Structure formats: C-alpha cells, structure tokens
C-alpha cells in the first residue's frame, strides 16, 4: 500500500483556511524556513480513504478476541468515548484553573479528578492517589521517585530494588532511571518469587521491592504479605505493579497486602482504549506516610464543597507531568467505574479468572502448561515436546491463530518460560468466543504435531506474512524523506 506522501498531487487541498482581514506581516527572513515543509497535498477524500484503508489493515478488540496476556484487552465502552468528547471536557484549557479564581471555571473537571481518587482509594486500599502519571511505566517511575524522596528524608542511604525475574521490563528500567540498581530475584518451582530468596537478598541497602501480583504467569503469590513485612523490616518500601489488578479487582486490595505504593493501568483494568499503543494513564496511590511526597498539583475538596488545586506540599517530588495527567483517559475510567458500581466491580475479577481458568482447563491436554495450577486472570502455555521436535515455536502457533481470525496471545513473555504463550481472555468475552478460540487452538495443536510444515508459512490471510525484523534493523529505514 502506498504511503500518504506517495499519493500527494501538487496543488491539491483538503482544508480551506478562513479568509482574514488583518494585515499580513513579514517576519525577518533569516528567522524563516528556507523550504516549505513538504507535507502531502491531498483532498479530504484522499485522506479519509488512505486512513480508512490503513484501519482495515489493523486489528482491535472490536474486530475479535484479543487475548494478549498482561495487556488486559477488554471491551472499551462506547459511552466513555462519547462523554470524553463533550466540549466541557475536550475544549478545556489546562491553564484555566491556574488563573486567579480560575478553579471555579473547571469545577466539573476537578470534581472528576477528586472523585476518581476517592474511588481508587477504596478499590485498592491506599490513602491517596495522583492522576498525573501518563502511563503505567510513568507511574512506576513516579513510584520510584516517591521511594527515593522518602529515603532521602529518612536519611537512608539505600541503593537497590528487588524485582522478580518474571517482572515486566519496565520495572527494572524504571528503578534504574530513578537512580537505583536492580537485584533480580528468581522465581521458584511454583512460579512465584520465593520468600527465602527475598530473605537471602535482604540487607540495609534494599530501598524497596517491586512486585506484580498476580504475576505475569497469572499466579498469586501466597506469601505476598510476608514478603512485604520482610521488606518493611529493613525500612524498605513495597511497590505494587497494578498491571494485573484485573485479576483481583473487587475481591482483594493491594493496600491490605502491605503495599506502600501502587500504580494502576487505567487502560487495562479500567477499560480505557489502548489506542494502538497509547495514550494510557498510570495513577499512583500511596499509604498515608507517603502522601506528602505525591506530585503537585493535588486536587482537594474545600469545606464549602468546591474543588481546588493545591500546590503547597513542601515534601512533594514536584511536577512529573505538565498538568493533571491524561485527563481524557482518567475521565473514561471514571465513567467505567461509575457504571460498574459496587456490584459490577466484583464480577470483573470473577469472570476474568473464570474465563482464564476455563481456557486453561480446556487447552491443557493440547499444550503444555508452564505451571499446572489454579491461575488468576491469565494462563501461560508452552509448546508440547512433540511440537518442539517438529521445530515448531510459539511464533508459529501465534501466526496460525491469525489465519483463524484471532489476535494471538503474548508470546515469548515472561522470558522465564521458553516459548511462552500468555493468554488473558478478560471478563468481557463470552463462552462462545472462548470456545471458538479453544477450537482453533486445538486444531493448530494437531497441525503442529502432525503437519508442522503447514504452520511455518502462516499467516496466509493477513496483508503481510512474517516481516523480517533483522532486515529492518540492519537497513534502517524509519522515515520517508
């Protein structure tokens, strides 16, 4: 398919600029660009057709089942999109509340920010949230900065963060960027971070721990509270990576496990769209002793019932985002929580876990389970021995699934499982959808064992087949100029 630039026809226009009756100014020529920007010249129809064609070469949750493990690809309610486009939200300038008396101009938006804070506190068992982090990884960095600020205040000279080997790569990267060194803790035979291993690595240098629970294998660590206690015994802080909160939302609260800092991925558990890779939102909640370190500004409710921004927090880590977070995303999550309510929320985890265990049970005779035990929101399979002997890898299963009309699961992650296939169905999918996915997986398993060569050339129905990543990196072409 041609690039938008290749469709350009000199002189063609999509947008007519409104005529004006103010004089044209001539800015000094050495301050001006020498050549025009060379953007495509197209009609509106050209542009609409081009991007409609591109959209047809893409696959979202609205197309079909998207069991991408650890990404929680649940349905994104349309009403949230509708509400986010209300002019009272979409056209609101972020500097308005910073004007004198300006808070009164944005009472609705400030109230949304305050109320979702209260809701998330209740859902997670934390004392206060900041909505500022712009993505999950940004929340992790914010959490690590809060941790550093706490230890600085305590006069602690702590240098390391403990992170299990099954963690998302963002955990060690966030800790490192905040100035910490990372100690990787191996998982044990049950697939979780071993409490004995934590004890072995425990010393006064330990600033804290980052843990995803349930972890990326979909397994809940039964010793999570004891592990948190251990970290606290050396005045370390505990960080809960909320990537997998969907497994326990409405059933259990990370704050009760002993976590001091929590980030949530609103685009996962709280159903805001993933946007093809963003924007997300990664609010961070903390326990009471860490509240003074939260980023500024903070939304408060005053005694007269109005809402205001507060900046006067001397111990705050400061600004980590320009304003109040990805407000448009936070708003959609707020809508989702309001609609679920108390009775809806606890059904989320129940059905997410039910769906994952159903897939696990029905597929376990056909693929090898990395850990054959009760799972939470996702299950991790690997290929059978026979498939391995046939030269089949996780990628072949994934590509064959594309021909069956499904998005593949996450493959090759977590890295501690060879040929991992991480399946997260989410609660919004129905039994019929799961059954048809399971049938497809079983058919593929049979092929992988008996006619492996057929899988090697899949997918045959997609617009391209197995693009070569080595060529892309070697003959680097990342812009059409």
């Amino acid at each position, binding site marked *: 398919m041609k690039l938008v630039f290749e469709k350009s026809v000199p002189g063609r226009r*999509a947008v007519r600029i409104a005529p004006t009756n103010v004089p044209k100014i001539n800015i000094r020529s050495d301050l001006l660009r020498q050549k025009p920007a060379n953007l495509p010249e197209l009609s509106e129809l050209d542009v609409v057709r081009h*991007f409609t064609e591109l959209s047809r070469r*893409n696959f979202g949750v609205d197309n079909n089942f998207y069991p991408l493990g650890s990404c929680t690809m649940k349905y994104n309610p349309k009403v949230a999109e509708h509400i986010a486009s209300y002019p009272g939200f979409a056209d609101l300038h972020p500097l308005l509340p910073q004007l004198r008396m300006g808070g009164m101009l944005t009472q609705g938006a400030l109230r949304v920010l305050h109320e979702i804070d209260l809701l998330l506190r209740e859902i997670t068992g934390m004392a206060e949230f900041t909505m500022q982090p712009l993505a999950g990884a940004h929340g992790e960095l914010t959490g690590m900065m809060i941790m550093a600020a706490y230890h600085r205040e305590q006069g602690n000279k702590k240098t390391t963060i403990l992170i299990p080997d099954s963690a998302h790569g963002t955990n060690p990267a966030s800790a490192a960027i905040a100035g910490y060194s990372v100690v990787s803790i191996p998982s044990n035979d049950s697939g979780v971070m071993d409490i004995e291993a934590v004890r072995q690595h425990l010393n006064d240098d330990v600033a804290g721990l980052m843990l995803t629970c349930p972890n990326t294998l979909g397994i809940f660590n039964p010793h999570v509270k004891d592990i948190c206690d251990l970290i606290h015994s050396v005045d370390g802080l505990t960080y809960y990576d909320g990537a997998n909160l969907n497994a326990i939302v409405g059933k259990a609260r990370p704050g009760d496990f002993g976590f001091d800092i929590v980030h949530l991925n609103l685009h996962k558990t709280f159903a805001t769209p993933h946007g093809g890779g963003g924007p997300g939102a990664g609010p961070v909640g903390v326990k009471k002793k860490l509240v003074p370190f939260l980023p500024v500004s903070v939304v408060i409710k005053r005694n007269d019932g109005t809402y205001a921004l507060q900046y006067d927090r001397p111990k705050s880590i400061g600004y980590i*985002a*320009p304003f109040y977070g990805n407000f448009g995303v936070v708003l959609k999550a707020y809508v989702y929580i309001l609609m679920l309510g108390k009775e809806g929320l606890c059904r989320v985890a129940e059905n997410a876990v039910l769906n994952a265990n159903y897939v696990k049970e029905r597929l376990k005779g056909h693929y090898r389970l990395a850990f054959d035990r009760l799972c939470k929101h996702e299950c991790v399979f690997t290929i059978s021995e026979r498939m391995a002997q046939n030269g089949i890898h996780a990628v072949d299963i994934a590509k064959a699934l594309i021909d069956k009309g499904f998005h593949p699961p996450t493959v090759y992650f977590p890295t501690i499982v060879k040929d991992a296939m991480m399946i997260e169905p989410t609660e*919004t999918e129905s039994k019929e959808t799961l059954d048809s996915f399971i049938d497809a997986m079983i058919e593929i398993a049979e092929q992988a064992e008996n006619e492996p060569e057929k899988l090697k050339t899949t997918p045959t129905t997609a617009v391209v*087949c197995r*693009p070569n990543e080595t060529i892309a990196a070697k003959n680097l072409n990342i812009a059409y100029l």
Partner: protein
Amino acid sequence: MPFISNTPQQQEQMLAEIGLTMDELFDDVPRELMAEAFDLPRGLSEQETRNRLMELAEKNATHLTCFLGGGFYDHFIPAAVHSIVSRSEFYTAYTPYQPELSQGVLQATYEYQSMICRLTEMEVANASLYDGGTALYEAMMMALRITDRNKVIVDDSVNPIYRVMIHSYTQNLKIELEQTHCEDGLTNRDQILQIIDDKTAAVIVQNPNFFGCIDEFSDIAEAAHDKGSLLIVSSYPVSLGILKTPAAMGADIVTGEGQSLGIPMSFGGPYLGFMASAKQYVRKMPGRIAGETLDMSGQKAYVLTLQTREQHIRRDKATSNICSNEALCALTALVYLSLLGTQGLRETAQLCADKAKYAYKRLTAIPGVEPHFRGKWFFNEFVLDLPYEAADVIARLIEKRFAAGFPLGRYYDGMENSILISVTEKRTKQEIGMLAEALESVL
C-alpha cells in the same frame, strides 16, 4: 451485568468444566487478604451516567474566548480528524506486537515519523513520547548517554512547566543543572557561552520561547558543538509552517508538544511528545520506532525496530523505561498534517503570526498597556505590561467572557504585571477587537 457477556448459566457450565466453584477460583488468595466489602456506590445506567457527566461538563467554562496559550493552544481542528481516529480498528488495538495484524498502525507510525522529520528537517524521529515535557527530559537523558557527561544548561525562556518537570526527574541523579536567564526576551547566549565547558552534555533552548519571541540558535549550536555538547531545541510544531527549522539552526535533538496538531486541549492530556534527532544518535533514542522491511514473500511491510534499546529486552540497561507511546495522538497529528498539507500548514502558521501582530497593535494602543520586550519578532504569543497586577486584570476579563492570557508572575519574579497573550488562527478580527475593548474597560 454491564460489560460482562457470560450469563449465570454459562458461568455454571464453565465452573463445572473447571470443577471448582466461583469462590474456589480465589482459593490461592489467603483468606485474610480477601476484602470483606467495598464502600462503593451502586452502578449507573448509561442514561444516568451521561446525565451526570453532562452536568459536570457544564460546570466547566466553555463560554470563554481563548487567548490562553503557554505551550497549549486552541487551534482549529477539521472534523475529518476526529472521524478518522475514532475508527475502532485504531483505537481498540494495542502496541503492534503482531505486525501482520498491525500494518495500519505501523505504517501510520512510519508516516508520522516521516512527517516529524519533514517538519523539523531532522533525519530520524521516534513513534512519540507522552508529552512535550517528558520528551524534553528524555532528550536530556539521551544527550547524557551520547556525551557521557553530566552537566546541562537550560535557559529560563524554556517553558517553566518543562523546567520544573526536569528538575523533579533529576532529583535523585548525579546531574548538574545550570539555568541561564533570558536577556530581553531572547535566550541568554552570553551567559551560555560563559558557562559551557567540556563537561556540558547539552544546552536546552526553545523556539518560539515561552514569551513567544522567535530566536535563532545557530551561534549557540556552534558554541555547543565546539565543546562537544549537543543542542536540544523544544519547538512548537505549527510554527514550523513558516519558521526556520531547528535542523537549519544546527540542533542535534528536537522535541516538542504536538497538541497543536489537531489534538483537543482536554484539560491537559492526552497530548503528544515528539522527538527527532540526527541519524547518528538513533540507537541512543528512547521510545518505539517503526521501520520499513520486507515480509517472507518480499513485499514491503512495517515493524517495530531497534527494539534492543528498549525495556522489554534490555530491562535496567534500556535507553528509557518507556513502554507505550501516544500512538493515537501521533495518528491524530499525522491525519491533521495530511489534511493541512504544505500550503495549509504554512497559511495556518502565517495567520497565527498575522493575527497575533494585529492583536499586539490593538492592545498596545490602549493607554497604560506597554510591550514588555521591544523590537522583538514574535510568532503567536507576546508579553504585555499592564498598569496593575496581571492576575487581577485577567480575573476581571473572565467576567467579560475572555480567557485573556496567562499571568507571568506565576513563574517569573518581577513580572507580576505582565500577561502572556496567545492568538491562534481560530481567533477572529472581531474577537480581537472585543478583547481590546474589554481590556480597556477594566483598566
């Protein structure tokens, strides 16, 4: 139950298949860790939700004519932009981990990167970052990696919001931040030349700067390069429709806030951080990058590339912790620029400058209103000195239905009477005239 498809009967069938009860599915969570109850409100129907949210939306001021900027602008957005980015094949997808199902997003990302390169005249660009502020911070970190040095110079004409963000991020790191003080509306080159040395990783500047003044950084680029330092320029993409590009001034890394490219203001986000650089630094760049390649049958295809820089492979040695980008916002900017085209962007930028100049003339004709910087070229923002505290004047203009500008005293000592006024192509001559009348009436 909203958004859950399985009926109670189906749930029973599935539990029977598994051989457990719903409660037993949570047996691996220790009893004492299960929450007893949640103090949450009952769930609302769609109609109730929409009514409540409409009520909240109406508590936000949408009746004000906007002359407020400060890096975030009320530009006109063609209807086709929203229509295209609302296609759910785009917005309900995730990161293109499976290129066969993601050629749409991948090609769009490649086109977006190309668009940013064409706009800035830089050689390479990434798939986007969270916003202009985090993009500037990431550029600074990138410069530290490239030069293996730890000193950074920032002029205070760079957006103060970005400067406080950089300050927060570097609290726990061994980075020496030096701030120079803008001289009569322009970046303070004398001070920069004085303190730049062979420990300096980068000089950070902005064009047009926070006061709206247009600068030219070739001299600073030369001085930086002489010392082996990099020049980082934060820029305003719409202005590049007419203004000299950062590349033409010798910039090594260019960042900016892409909100002005068709993205609604949405009370501060989601926005779009863009980043471009010279090709030689691409392997030190943070964030995702899409690249062209061939598939098994030899046809053109797009994939995420240079992934060995990234956290999911390099973990604590990665160039950044960033995982997601702002894909949908990057798509928005791409669609906006495709619709405007070369001429449309140039005309939009020229109109911003023309209308700002007209507003400047109208407003400075009011007795007691003086330009803060004299004889400076500005793009679509300028600073005026008022006879009284600007915050107070702005509050009075709100009563007359104008968001008239930003009080600079909030970020700059001694500028309590100064107001930053922004004019986009969307403002009409009539609105500008009405602002002038309103301002005159409150002074």
